[in-house]
Structures are given as C-alpha cells and as structure tokens.
C-alpha cells in the first residue's frame, strides 16, 4: 500500500470534497423545502393535488437516481443542439455544468423521499396538540410553523439523519457526468497514478468521516422530546 501520491493529489481530494459538500447542502436545503410542500400537498383535501403528488413521489422513488441524472443531463442536454438560442441565455453557464443537473436531480429526489418521510411524521403528531393550538385561535400557517412541523421533525430526527447520509452517498453519482466530486477526484488520481485501491480507500474513509459528522450533527440539534404525562 503506497500513499506517497497523497502529497501531490491532496488538493484534488480537497476540491472534490468541497464539491460533494456543496451538492449535499444545496440539494439538502432546497430538497427539504420542496419536501415540506410535497408532504403537505399529499395530506391536503384536494384530490387532484394529492394524487398528482402521489404519482410524482412514486416515479421518483421507483426509478434509479442514475437514470434520472442521465435523463436530465443527456436527454435534456441533447435538446440544446437543436435550439442554439439557449446558448446566449442567462441560464447557459448553469446548463453547461453537470454539477447543476445533479443538484437538480438530487433536489427532486430528496423532495420525494423526504416528502414521504415527512408525510408519515406529520400524520403521527398527536391530534390533540393540533386541536389545542387551533383552540387558541392560531391560524393554520402558525399551527404548522409552531406546533405541527416542529413536533414531526422531533420524531423524525433519526430518520432524517439517515436520509442525509443517503444523500451524501447519492452525491457520488455526480462522478458519472464528468463532475469532479470526491469520487471523481479518486478516479482522477487513479488514472494519473495507475494505483487501483489506495485512492478509493482514502476516499471511502473520507465519506465515512463525513457520515459520522452528519449523524453527530443531527444528534446534537433539537431538544429531547417531552415525556407523556
């Protein structure tokens, strides 16, 4: 096992880790915001909305993430050749980079998976608390913000930690569309040094460390739930 290459390629790994974290944070944040919308939509009385979102989550959870990324990057990308106007547009810098396609795909994926998780959590909050809040005259939005969502999130904390680690793992798929994230950096080092295992092992350790940090982070935030009287 030879790790001498680390001193030469250290910066590549750091840049890769940076891209991975950016993907994680961007898709985690926007995905979560969308997930709230998806969860509430699924629970709404509007049949159209609820069924439509059910199909949405069903498709996103029923197809591989890699296929979703390819559909977006190659599928949508192939359309650009036929519409040269797009190249002059505002979005072109984003449409050129594989990074943003992966971020978008991950955001949609998070909205579907976390949306389902949130739906379960929201349904599990004891009705009594919601009724009490409404009895105080709180508007529905306030009830959501102050009672319903916080209680659901408290219960879902371990599940959300798990979903975040799964999101971290999913970011590795970016390496398949020429994005030099952490795994992409490992592949680059492998190609340059012709070493097979060492770059992959080092990067595996980095992913484990990141996963531990995420899990610990979730364990620290949030208060302990109240005990039932």
């Amino acid at each position, binding site marked *: 096992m030879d790790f001498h290459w680390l001193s030469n390629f250290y910066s590549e790994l750091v840049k890769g880790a940076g891209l991975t974290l950016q993907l994680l944070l961007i898709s985690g944040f926007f995905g979560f915001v969308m997930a709230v919308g998806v969860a509430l939509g699924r629970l709404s009385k509007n049949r159209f909305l609820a069924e439509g979102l059910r199909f949405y989550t069903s498709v996103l959870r029923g197809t591989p993430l890699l296929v979703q990324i390819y559909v977006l990057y*190659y599928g949508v990308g192939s359309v650009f050749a036929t519409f040269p106007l797009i190249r002059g547009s505002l979005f072109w810098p984003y449409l050129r980079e594989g990074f943003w396609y992966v971020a978008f795909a991950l955001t949609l994926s998070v909205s579907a998976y976390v949306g389902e998780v949130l739906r379960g959590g929201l349904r599990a909050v004891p009705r009594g608390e919601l009724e009490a809040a409404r009895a105080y005259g709180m508007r529905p939005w306030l009830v959501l913000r102050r009672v319903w969502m916080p209680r659901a999130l408290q219960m879902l904390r371990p599940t959300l930690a798990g979903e975040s680690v799964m999101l971290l793992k999913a970011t590795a798929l970016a390496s398949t569309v020429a994005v030099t994230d952490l795994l992409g950096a490992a592949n680059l080092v492998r190609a340059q040094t012709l070493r097979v295992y060492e770059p992959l092992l080092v990067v595996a350790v980095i992913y484990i460390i990141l996963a531990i940090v995420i899990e610990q982070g979730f364990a620290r935030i949030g208060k302990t739930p109240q005990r039932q009287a």
Partner: protein
Amino acid sequence: MTLSDISRLFLADGWLQALAQGMVRTLGISLGAFVLGLALGLIVAMVKLKGPRWMVVCANCYTTLYRAVPELLLILLLYYAGADLINLTLAAFGQPSVEINGFIAAIVVLGIVQGAYSGEIIRGAIESIPHGQIEAAKAYGINRGLLVRRVILPSMLPFAIAGLSNLWLVLVKESALISVVGYSELLTAGRQAAASTKHYLLFYLAVGAFYYLITLVSSSVFRQVEVRFERWMPRHA
C-alpha cells in the same frame, strides 16, 4: 418525433428487444444479489445477536462501512479488489487464475452491499419475535440448528417482509450502477441505444419506464405476500 418514428425505432430497429433483454439481465442480477444478500444478512444478524465479541466488532464494521460509503465506490472497490483477492488466494494454492464471469461478479458485488442492510432488517425482525416462543422451544431441549431452522426463521419472516420488500426495490435500482463498471444490463442497453440513435431523451425515459414497471409489479407482489404473512404475525393480548 412522431408516434410512427418511435414505433419504428423500437420495433423495426430492434431496440425494444435489446431493452427487454437488458431488463431480464437486471432482474437476474438483482435476484442473485438479493438471495446472496439475505444469506449474508442472516449470518450478520446471528453474529450480532449471539456471536463472540470479535465477530460482533467485525459485523459492526461491515455494516457501518456499507451504510456510510457510496455504493458506486463500493462497487468499484469490490470489482477490482474482488478479482485480485480471488486470484491471490488461487495463486497461494498454486492454481492458475480464473476469469471471473461478469454476471457472477455483479451478483457478488451487489450481494455483499445488500448483506449489510438486510442484516439490520433481519436482526430487528428476530428481536421482535416474542421471547416466549424461543424459551418454549429451548425448554423442549431442541438444539441450536433446529431452533434456527424451525422457530427463528419462520417467525421472523412476517416482521422482516416489509423491510425486505423495500430492500428489493433498492437493489433493483442499485443494479443500474453496475453499468458504470461495464456490465451489460438494462441501463447499459439504454445507453447503447441512445448513443447509436442519438435519441437520448427518448431512450433514457424508456429505461426509466422499464424500471418503474419493475417497481410497480414488485410492489404489488410484495403487498400480496405481506397480506398473506399478516396471518402469521402474533396478535398481542
């Protein structure tokens, strides 16, 4: 792209057949990996519940590793390391190296990744078995092997079904990652079709539709199985 264009591409040019063949390979790899994952998971679960200290540590390492590291990275590692290890051990025994069949390699790689997850599910299921049943069996004096085969395995199945059905779906989707190391399955067939015809969006959507089909059919099958197993779950007093 008119409907007739699409039907020509799929039917006359034979791409539908290529995709269908890919789907069969995907199902084959997934089934093999699922069975292997179950076997490994069973071993891991038993080790974690009742094994010697050092084996429990190993099992914990295995589970943590495979749940924290991206599957794509694991597939790459196993793909290279596996071949090397096998050939090293063969060389140690003085045997010539063997060429590893791609299909088997894909099954082994995915199966090992699955083993960590199914281990957790099976462990949780075994812990849910009402303890009285196991105590009664032991009171009858049956030995360890019979205990596992006749009491633990059948009783934990209803509890495990929900988790395992979810795992099957995850596995089918994960099998798409095998295309990155070059094994031929549904996504690879789709890529070849897309690259040959330059109709990327069409073929990748078609691949997605195939996977969705597998997911839908699997889900309904598992729902049937769950309903039937529901009868076996002990009703609490």
